[in-house]
């Protein structure tokens, strides 16, 4: 991160919890990151890692109770979104920050025509007249590649395929030309050929409109092709944060390394077992002491079971939450074929 580009959003020490029958669950615990204008940030994690709750917190879409955004700041264009009045926040939501969700069928109203749903936002936020809004909606549908947009606009969501519905969601999200698009598993429910179309569409729109994107996904392949920076979340915490290329070639956290190794590689001969991370994610209502990943980690030592790990800076812009972050990172560097001299160079540049 050179620091020249302007920051569009910065999240500082965010904490969000839910009160459940089993006690208080820290869904997001001390999460800090920032995103530069025009860049794409990937947030990767398994279910329950806190990746979606982080993004719902940004727009204050956490149902209270049982949830609560307990602490932190979300600075967007100089304002802390957590301090805005509901009225002020409404001007940001859908207009300057837009969201696309995993399942378009549950986010589109099945009883309303596509035209009604698409024109609502621009009439509200851009003050469009009925005619202007409709014209704009057709333009947006064409932009996202819906054939016969003039006809389709008067249809209902159920008349469209899953991929087309996701396109409508993206059209709706981009209607007001937002500065930030948050896409939460936008292609998870889709087939691979349709996923390829939607990802290509997001890339293309990003290039044309300069939108910054936060892409939440569990698919490491999607992250590799779409993002500039990646955050890996586990148990509500950021376990690793790095430039995308660095994270994949030189992971500095045992969890990230395990995730990368557990994806089947087409080059592998059939029959070799996959690397597997043993066990299950922790119960967040009753987290283990020390590092939350320690019970599943392949290089746990005594300290991991008793002390919470530090968030270590390995290299500029590359951080890892681990007692042995530096050792793990150096192992990765060696596997990646970086020799000692280069290693010294990397260090001296950072130093």
């Amino acid at each position, binding site marked *: 991160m050179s620091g020249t580009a302007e920051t569009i959003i910065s999240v500082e020490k965010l904490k969000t919890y839910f009160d459940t029958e089993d006690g208080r669950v820290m869904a997001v615990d001390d999460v800090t990151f920032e995103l530069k204008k025009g860049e794409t940030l990937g947030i990767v994690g398994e279910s329950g890692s806190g990746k979606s709750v982080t993004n719902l917190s940004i727009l204050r879409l956490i149902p209270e109770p049982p949830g609560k955004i307990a602490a932190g700041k979300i600075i967007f264009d100089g304002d802390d979104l957590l301090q805005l009045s509901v009225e002020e926040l409404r001007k940001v939501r859908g207009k300057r920050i837009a969201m696309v969700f995993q399942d378009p069928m549950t986010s589109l109203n099945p009883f309303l025509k596509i035209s009604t749903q698409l024109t609502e936002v621009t009439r509200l936020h851009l003050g469009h007249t009925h005619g202007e809004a409709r014209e704009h909606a057709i333009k947006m549908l064409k932009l996202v590649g819906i054939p016969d947009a003039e006809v389709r606009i008067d249809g209902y969501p159920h008349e469209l395929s899953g991929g087309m519905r996701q396109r409508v969601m993206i059209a709706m999200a981009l209607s007001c030309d937002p500065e930030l698009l948050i896409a939460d598993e936008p292609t998870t429910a889709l087939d691979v050929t349709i996923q390829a179309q939607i990802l290509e569409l997001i890339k293309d729109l990003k290039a044309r409109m300069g939108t910054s994107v936060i892409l939440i996904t569990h698919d490491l392949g999607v992250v590799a092709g779409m993002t500039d920076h990646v955050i890996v979340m586990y148990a509500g915490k950021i376990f690793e944060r790095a430039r995308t290329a660095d994270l994949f070639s030189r992971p500095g956290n045992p969890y990230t390394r395990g995730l990368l190794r557990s994806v089947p590689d*087409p080059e592998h001969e059939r029959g070799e077992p996959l690397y597997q991370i043993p066990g299950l994610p922790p119960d967040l209502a009753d987290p283990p002491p020390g590092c939350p990943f320690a019970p599943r980690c392949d290089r746990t030592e005594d300290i991991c079971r008793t002390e919470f790990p530090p968030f270590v800076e390995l290299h500029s812009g590359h951080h890892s939450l681990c007692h042995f972050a530096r050792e793990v990172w150096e192992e990765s560097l060696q596997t990646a074929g970086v020799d000692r001299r280069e290693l010294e160079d990397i260090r001296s540049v950072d130093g």
Partner: protein
Amino acid sequence: MPNSDNLITIDDLQVHYRSGGGLFGGSKTVKAVDGVSLEIKKGETLGLVGESGCGKSTLGRAILRLTEPTSGSVTFDGKDLSALSNDAMREQRRHLQMIFQDPYASLNPRMTVGQIIGEPIRTFGLANGSPDRRVSELMETVGLSPRFIKRYPHEFSGGQRQRIGIARALAVDPDFIVADEPISALDVSIQAQIMNLMQKLQSEKGLTYLFISHDLRAVRHLSDRVAVMYLGRIVELADGRDIYADPLMPYTKALISAVPVPDPAIEAKRERIILKGDVPSPIDPPAGCHFHTRCRYAIPECKTVVPRLVEIKPRHFAACIRINAECADIDANEVNSRGAIQ
């Protein structure tokens, strides 16, 4: 002709549904499975891939007669399953089991794990002594602690529930298991656990799998051979390695190129084949080759001629009239034919 190496021989299997109709207009026929012939060898894993609605799950169910085929036959170990009475078929299910995608929907929430895994043992009278002992053994086999025998499905995570589903399928000591998207609903780290478990069980028990999935990476990892399905038909069939390294049919090429690779360096350089449009409706699929509406190599004949699955290279079959054993490379054929026209 049933070959002795084959555990399952599927011959021209068809599953048609009546759809729509209602008050106005006649009902239409959906050909979910439209003339599939396949052989599954003893001890192998045959992967079956395709997009939603291609008929892969229906094919899996029809093999076990959980969905009645409209025509065609399935031979298991020399017996024609389609000719069996319902009672005789029920008896055969001991040998033919299924693992489902959603382990929660396929487990009775009111039964304990012990009852769920023990039910097939009791139904088929397989226990020597107490079924509970057999259940405990099965739980250990799939990596669940027998301490949990009295717990209910909701007390388990997705991955653990899938282990329960696998233990239930194993309870009758089957020869053949249809695994329908068994890892799709699971997290990445848990997917690896379940794939490893399936492989371990296969080598220990000599199981034969039909592994149905839309995840090409997982299919490549687990399968000896892979069949690609599109709108009810098998369009390509080859060894797992060949189908990845050298896909022949344009649909397979696009499908494989669409899978994101977890390596930013590869992703940056890759030229992805982006297919236009969606999979057409199976209610009224395009004539000729079903894929011609999305295929950039389509020529007029593709709209009328139904391509047959033929052996293009040794053990590598594809259904495309634009390639043949003399010239298997569709891009080369494309250049040649363009050249000839100009």
